[in-house]
């Protein structure tokens, strides 16, 4: 509690202590979403930067870890949103009917492409729920949304992925 009060008052030592205590958790959470060490490090710093700037609004009765994770999720979504504009979304690949030695790799690439077409919010929900298998409650808390919203997002992500993959000639 003292640390949180200190943070709220702009005490750099309190901020440093909290940073060192939670940087690993924040990094790990972001890493699950962005899956790139360098980007995850940058976004971890961005997360704490936003926390520091918004410190006066923090409710010291609340849990710092949960708040940090929520900020981290928003930072990751913002990153995906900005990176999405830079990504070259490829045109539909021609489907190959014949078996290929590299078929698994090709399918993997198509899944990645289909995934890149999802909106940032659907991407985050899908990767956390389906790939990382995080509990829906945990994802809901990190996104600041009800569990039902997360279920809907995952459902929509799966439906869109299936459609995209079918267009690419992959029938899940």
């Amino acid at each position, binding site marked *: 509690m003292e640390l949180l009060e200190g943070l709220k008052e702009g005490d750099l030592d309190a901020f*440093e202590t909290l940073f060192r205590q939670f940087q690993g958790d924040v*990094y790990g959470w972001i*890493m699950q979403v962005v*899956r790139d060490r360098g980007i995850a490090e940058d976004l971890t*710093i961005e997360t704490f930067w936003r926390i520091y700037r918004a410190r006066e609004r923090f409710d010291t009765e609340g849990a710092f870890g949960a708040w940090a994770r929520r900020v981290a999720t928003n930072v990751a979504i913002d990153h995906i949103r900005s990176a999405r504009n830079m990504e070259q979304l490829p045109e539909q690949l021609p489907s190959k009917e014949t078996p290929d030695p590299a078929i*698994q790799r090709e399918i*993997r690439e198509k899944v990645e492409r289909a995934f890149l077409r999802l909106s940032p919010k659907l991407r985050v929900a899908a990767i956390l729920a*389906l790939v990382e298998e995080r509990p829906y409650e945990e994802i809901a808390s990190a996104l600041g949304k009800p569990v039902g919203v997360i279920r809907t997002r995952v459902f929509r992500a799966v439906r869109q*992925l299936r459609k995209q*993959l079918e267009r690419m000639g992959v029938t899940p």
Partner: protein
Amino acid sequence: MRHGDDKEIQRLLKEAFPPVDRELRRDLWPAMLGRLEALDLQCAGTTGRFWHCCVSGCFFARKGFCNSFTSCEAEEL
């Protein structure tokens, strides 16, 4: 959507996105501190520019006032 479809999409996603190492390998505090210091410098710069503008403003306003006063005196004479 059938539950099987769901599982199949999940399997494909897991293959496309293999597990990642989630452990932080270095302390990020020095980088964080650098960013905070940059903010301080930026703020100091902004504050400095603000005071510079205030002082300059006062100087020119005073000068303008004095000039107008002098010209008024000259007119009276």
